[in-house]
């Protein structure tokens, strides 16, 4: 590790869910070459996450509480603390933000951070999780709106649906264990992707490749980690990789439009292990999949090798150009006709009165009926009556 790499990358964990992952990153890797900061409006959550730089956001807006699933409040909180965030980012060349979309802070503040990165002329990379279908329409709508905005401002957005958890884990897995495992995968994935910042070693790869694959594209990603040491570690790492709960399995990876992978090992990693590892990953890819694989040696890995794989699926199923009136779009998991899984299939549900627009031609944009009040579509809670 050099001083050069030390100032290359700054990680921001935005919101409570990401804070837990940030702490895992700090605990697991004592990541000396990474600069990690945890940003939140809820001071109780801030106190819970130690070992990283804590940045309280917008206290005058939220009075030290959470954002209450209000993305606008999250945006204001970030904007009010923009100088503190700038200070937390510090002197770095790249910004990696981890957040969970669907709530208030992550959904509202992510685009603000992307714009700040642009202003600071930093390359911005966002790893975001999307709410599960079971969490209801509110979080899903909030997440999709936030994602749309984020994609236009950030350099790279890796959006990982939490629904992938259900694909891989047995149904009798305790819920607590499943989420803890997901957090660990995100933490490992975060580190694996962060390695791109210093992956200039034996097989160079950097964030530009990721930008090529993801910039401005609507895509869902899945992420997997394989880690092993000792004899036969290459095969073990690949096996573990494909069992990662947020990767979606071998078949899902084989249908990916693009994959980006990093292999990180200790300085004594053998050429055979490296070859075997990359060859086994390539075996599972379709010939049409664009693959970008890089490898690097870092001393702190010792005997261990870690393989991180990001599978990218471009969204091909678009919402219909116009929806029936008095309807609003929704997104959910639904089986496709060929039995494969598709992630964005619009369906409609009855909405309430459109007020004065009940009898007018509906105004639609990207499948959304704009005549339905925005606050309803974005799930903003109104605190109506004064005491």
């Amino acid at each position, binding site marked *: 590790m050099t001083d050069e790499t030390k100032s290359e990358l700054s990680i921001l964990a935005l919101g409570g869910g990401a804070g837990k992952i940030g702490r895992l990153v700090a605990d697991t890797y004592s990541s000396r070459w990474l600069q990690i900061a945890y940003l939140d409006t809820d001071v109780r959550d801030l106190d819970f996450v130690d070992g990283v730089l804590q940045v309280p956001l917008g206290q*005058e*807006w939220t009075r030290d509480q959470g954002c209450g699933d*209000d993305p*606008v*409040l999250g945006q*204001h909180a970030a*904007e009010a603390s923009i100088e503190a965030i700038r200070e937390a980012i510090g002197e770095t060349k790249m910004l990696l933000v981890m957040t969970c979309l669907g709530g208030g802070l992550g959904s509202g503040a992510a685009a603000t951070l992307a*714009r700040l990165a*642009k*202003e600071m002329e930093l390359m911005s990379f966002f790893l975001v999780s999307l709410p599960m279908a079971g969490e209801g329409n509110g979080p899903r709508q909030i997440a999709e709106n936030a994602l*749309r*905005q984020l994609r*236009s401002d950030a350099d790279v957005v890796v959006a990982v649906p939490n629904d992938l958890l259900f694909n891989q884990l047995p149904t009798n897995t305790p819920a607590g264990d499943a989420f803890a495992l997901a957090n660990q995968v995100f933490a490992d994935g975060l580190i694996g992707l962060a390695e791109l910042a210093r992956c200039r070693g034996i097989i160079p790869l950097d964030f530009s490749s990721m930008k090529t694959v993801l910039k401005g594209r609507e895509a869902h990603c899945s992420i997997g980690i394989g880690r092993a040491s000792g004899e036969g570690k290459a095969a073990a790492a690949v096996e573990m990789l494909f069992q990662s709960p947020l990767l979606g399995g071998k078949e899902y990876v084989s249908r990916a439009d693009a994959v980006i992978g990093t292999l990180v090992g200790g300085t004594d990693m053998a050429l055979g292990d490296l070859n075997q590892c990359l060859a086994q990953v390539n075996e599972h890819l379709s010939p049409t999949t664009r693959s970008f694989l890089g490898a690097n040696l870092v001393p702190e890995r010792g005997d261990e090798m870690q393989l991180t794989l990001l599978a990218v699926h471009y969204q091909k199923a678009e919402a219909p150009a116009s929806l029936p009136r008095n309807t609003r779009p929704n997104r959910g998991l639904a089986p496709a006709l060929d039995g494969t899984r598709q992630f964005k299939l619009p369906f409609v549900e009855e909405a*309430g*009165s*459109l*007020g*004065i*627009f009940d009898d*007018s*031609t509906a*105004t639609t*944009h*990207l499948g959304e009926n*704009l*005549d339905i*009040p*925005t*606050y*309803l579509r*974005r799930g*903003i809670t*109104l*605190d*109506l*009556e*004064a005491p």
Partner: protein
Amino acid sequence: MPKAKTTITAIEIGTSAIKLILGEPQGEGNMIVHGYEEVKAQSRVMKGEISHVEALEEPLSKALNKLEEKSGQRIRAVCLAVTGNHIGSVNAQSSVPITSADRTVTDHEMLEVLEHAEAYSLPIDRRSLHRYQRPFLLDRLRPCQDPRGMVTNQLTANIQIIFGNENIIRTSESLVETVLGSPPDELAFSAIADYHGLGLPGACELGVLVIDIGAGVTEYALVKNDTCLLAGQVTVGCDHIANDLSIGLRLPIGRCREMVKRDIRARRSTEDSTAVLQVETSIGHPPRMIRKSAVTSIVEARLSELFEVVREELRSQEMLKHLGDRIVLCGGGALIPEIEELAGAAFTVPVAIGRPAGITGAQSGLDSPRMITAVGLLHYCDYMARLREAHDPSFRQLFGGEVQRLMGLFKRAFRI
């Protein structure tokens, strides 16, 4: 066709009101206003489109008579604003290979590629309202204002066509024809009228985005070097804010329309969480106390989304790079306090609230973003009349051959 120095009457039939201004051009883009009149549209216009044409005849007729009385002038040339969700724009593109040995573009090739682009045919139910010649492209890559003498393998011409639905436009025209006895002399898309009403022609070397937030429709036009690169509309306006408030706060729509005019602001502030708005609902009922934070949450969500939609339209057409040094907000929506900050946050470009430019005379009450479209119609009509005068037949007789063809193209491009 209107001639320069005659009086012009601007007619803007909007969702909330019909606005009329009678003015007289003074040359150099200046205009004396002799009078203006405004009547409520009273729900006969929805989302910028006339929904009850016969019911509009009487109020329009009365308003025009009043305008003649007040101004002491007769209605002569008429310019009508056009808007609604039927408005769209398309880039008509055509390319020709440059096959000469030295691959240098000649007059002939430039005219040929322009003719091909010009020949773009809209669907039969669409009518072209404005045409702007965008920069040529050399080898489909390098933009160029005048390609003659340039070396390239391929020359591409781009003409931006702003169009509307023939039947809807014809409905507006026939309303004016029924009331005045003749159809309007000029038609202009509202955002193009705004561009003229702001005095921007000749003053936008960097791209300027004009956004007009009306009661029913928000129109936008991105103009650079006096060429409209993109224009369009989002059928969302201040009525949507009022409707959102009505549904969210459970208040009558009339009361919410009043709130939009005086009680709201575009961005939440920290004081909103404790501030309270006392709202009279109906006679005999006690007033309701509503948190300002709830009101502003509704407004901010709607306006943020509106700017996001416009930004997304620009992004999808790869036009954000042409957004230069400013955005100008027009229409009644521009009067909402702090809306410029909200727009600035969405586009990260300085935002100004527009005011009508280039008018003198009876302008009391006209110095408002609400009146920019109507004032712009006067300027647009004058601009077109001067353009025609500059290219009248006696002038054209002096020239022949290729220049005549160029004139023909020019004439068609600007609907002369």
